[in-house]
Each structure stands twice: as C-alpha cells, then as structure tokens.
C-alpha cells in the first residue's frame, strides 16, 4: 500500500510541460495597437446571432464591415450594429465594391463619418479595396495606390488590400500605407495561399532590414482562406496577421471553425517564432543508435 501511495504522490507532483503562452505581442497598426492577430469579417453569416458567436469564438478584436445604402423604407428593424459590441470590437470599414480610386475615397470618408458617430477607435482606419473586376475581385494596383495616397493625405490609416505582387507591396509601403495586406488567393475562393513564395518575398522586402524593410512593418494576409491550415501557413511564413471572412462564415459550423482559426493563428504565430528545423531529404533518427540490440542493415 505504501508503494502505491508513493506512486500516487509522485504522479501528482509531476508538473505539466512548459507550454508557450497564447498571448501575442502587441501589433501596432497606425493609430491602433491590437493584441490579436486574426481580423474577421462580418459578411455572409446565416444570421446575426451566429455571426456574434463566431466573432466571439475567433478571439478577434478587429472586425471588418462594409458601407452600403441604407434600405430606408425596407427596414426589418435589425441592423448589424445591434449585434456588434462597439466597446469590445474595433471596426475596420472597407471599401469593398469600389472599382476606382475616387469611389473608394468617397466610401472611406462615409465609413469614417459613421464610426465617428459611434466614437469607435476604427474611425481613422480604412481597409482599402480598389478592385479590378467583379470576377476575380483582385485589386487594381494603380487605383489602390492612387486612393492610398489620397486617403493618407486626408488623415486615414490605410490598410491596403493588395495583390500578392512584391513590387506592388513595396510601392504601397513606400506611399505610406499603414499595412500591406496581400491576397492569399481571390476573395472568398477558399484556395488558401496560392503562391507562398510571393508572400515570402513580400515579407522579406517589407519586414527584413537587410532587404530595406522594417521588422515591425505590419503585413497581413488577406483573402482566400478556406481552412485553419491556411491561417497557420500565413502566420508561419511570418505574416503579422490574417484577415478572413468567408472561411468562417460559410463553414458548416461557423462557430467551431472560428475556434479552429483562432487555434491555427496561435499555432502559426508561435511556430514562426520557435525556429523550425531545416528540411532534409533523408531521415534523422529520434531514438539513439547506441545500445540497439540487433544488427543494423548497412552498418
């Protein structure tokens, strides 16, 4: 009996292995500092209630919204803002649906006007989208650059949705963009990061001092996320955050998927900072060769 007691005592004294904390380092994005690395959209959910639960499960503190005509006489009495706690979330208004710089600037100013009424910290922010066409929803780089300059001059912090083209990313950064947000793949397509090498180049050019970048310049992978592994990949590559909407909103179980995206983001974040092993062609044994009791072929 005594031996059993000792064994029990020994087991309870075993401490759990040290695990990395889930806390992120703060990320400065223009006039705001955020403490989470997922930015989550509010579109396409089956209901406002599910959206609210998914946002909560994702752990996000920044949510994107769109600016649209009020329905005027066709109101159902419920609006998005009834389901977003504006004290909890920083709202990032987008310019989705704009196909030239002039319209994007108009929409950004309208969004700011509403957020000023709400006194939300997102009032000086905009997620700039100037799209090339309705089929690809890929950015028009020239229009994006033009609108970015105009909005910066008007006092905005401009988070630029961009192509995954490294030179476009550099041009936007040089223009003063608060963050460059390259597309993993087209909006809502769920193909994840279609060209990891391009994202790696963008990260090097914008964040590596040896390549003319700044370590703290924020790069956020935006669009195309379909699975948690896409989020993890973006973070493992070295992105500062991931922005997604459809991957959560249209999942069969959006709340559970939001939780998975949150975990993937944390996994990728810590993985990127843990110094992964080099890839090799062949195996390296995890168990020692010394003391093997049997013959080893080839030795």
């Amino acid at each position: 009996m005594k031996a059993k007691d000792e064994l029990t005592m020994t087991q309870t004294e075993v401490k759990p292995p040290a695990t990395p904390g889930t806390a992120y380092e703060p990320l400065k994005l223009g006039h705001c500092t955020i403490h989470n690395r997922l930015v989550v959209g509010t579109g396409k959910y089956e209901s406002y209630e599910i959206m609210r639960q998914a946002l909560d499960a994702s752990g996000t503190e920044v949510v994107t919204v769109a600016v649209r005509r009020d329905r005027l006489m066709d109101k159902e009495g419920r609006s998005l803002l009834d389901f977003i706690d504006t004290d909890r979330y920083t709202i990032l208004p987008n310019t989705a649906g704009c196909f030239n710089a002039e319209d994007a600037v108009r929409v950004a100013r309208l969004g700011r006007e509403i957020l000023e009424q709400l006194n939300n910290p997102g009032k000086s922010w905009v997620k700039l989208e100037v799209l090339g066409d309705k089929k690809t929803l890929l950015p028009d780089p020239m229009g994006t650059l033009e609108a970015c300059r105009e909005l910066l001059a008007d006092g905005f912090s401009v988070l630029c949705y961009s192509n995954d083209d490294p030179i476009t990313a550099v041009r936007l950064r040089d223009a003063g963009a608060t963050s460059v947000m390259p597309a993993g793949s087209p909006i809502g397509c769920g193909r994840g990061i279609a060209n990891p090498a391009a994202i790696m180049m963008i990260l090097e050019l914008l964040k590596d001092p040896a390549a003319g970048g700044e370590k703290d310049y924020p790069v956020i992978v935006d669009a195309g996320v379909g699975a948690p592994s896409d989020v993890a990949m973006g973070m493992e590559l070295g992105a500062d955050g991931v922005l997604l909407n459809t991957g959560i909103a249209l999942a069969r179980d959006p709340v559970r998927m939001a939780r998975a995206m949150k975990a993937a983001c944390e996994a990728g974040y810590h993985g990127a900072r843990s110094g992964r092993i080099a890839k090799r062609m062949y195996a390296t044994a995890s168990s020692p060769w010394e003391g093997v009791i049997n013959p080893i072929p080839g030795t």
Partner: protein
Amino acid sequence: MKLSVNGEDVMLDGPCSVARLLRHYELDAAPCAVEVNKALIPKREHEGHALGDGDIIEIVTLVGGG
C-alpha cells in the same frame, strides 16, 4: 422638389434640410452618413444643409462585409 435618394426619385414639398430628410426616413438617431452630390455632409451640418431640386443623395450605413 425632386430628389434622388439612394437611387430612388423622391418628391418633397417645401424646403428640406438633410436633417429633415433623415427624420422623414426615421434615421435621425441611426448611425448613418449622408452624401449630397458626391460630397459628404458631416452630421454637424445636417440641420443647416438645405437640399436643392435635383440633388442626388446617398444615405449609407454599415453592413456585414469582409
């Protein structure tokens, strides 16, 4: 006075400010932004900004988006 409001033609009698238009649509307490002829009219100017015949008005709000 004929106005275009969010793409619809609207007839209004008498002088009308942006603020009165918003009251007409019961939007005076709602978070929204107003553009007249592509120029943003800040909330503090809603009462004093008189609308004119043929003005094109956009009243926008926030909706779900990514």
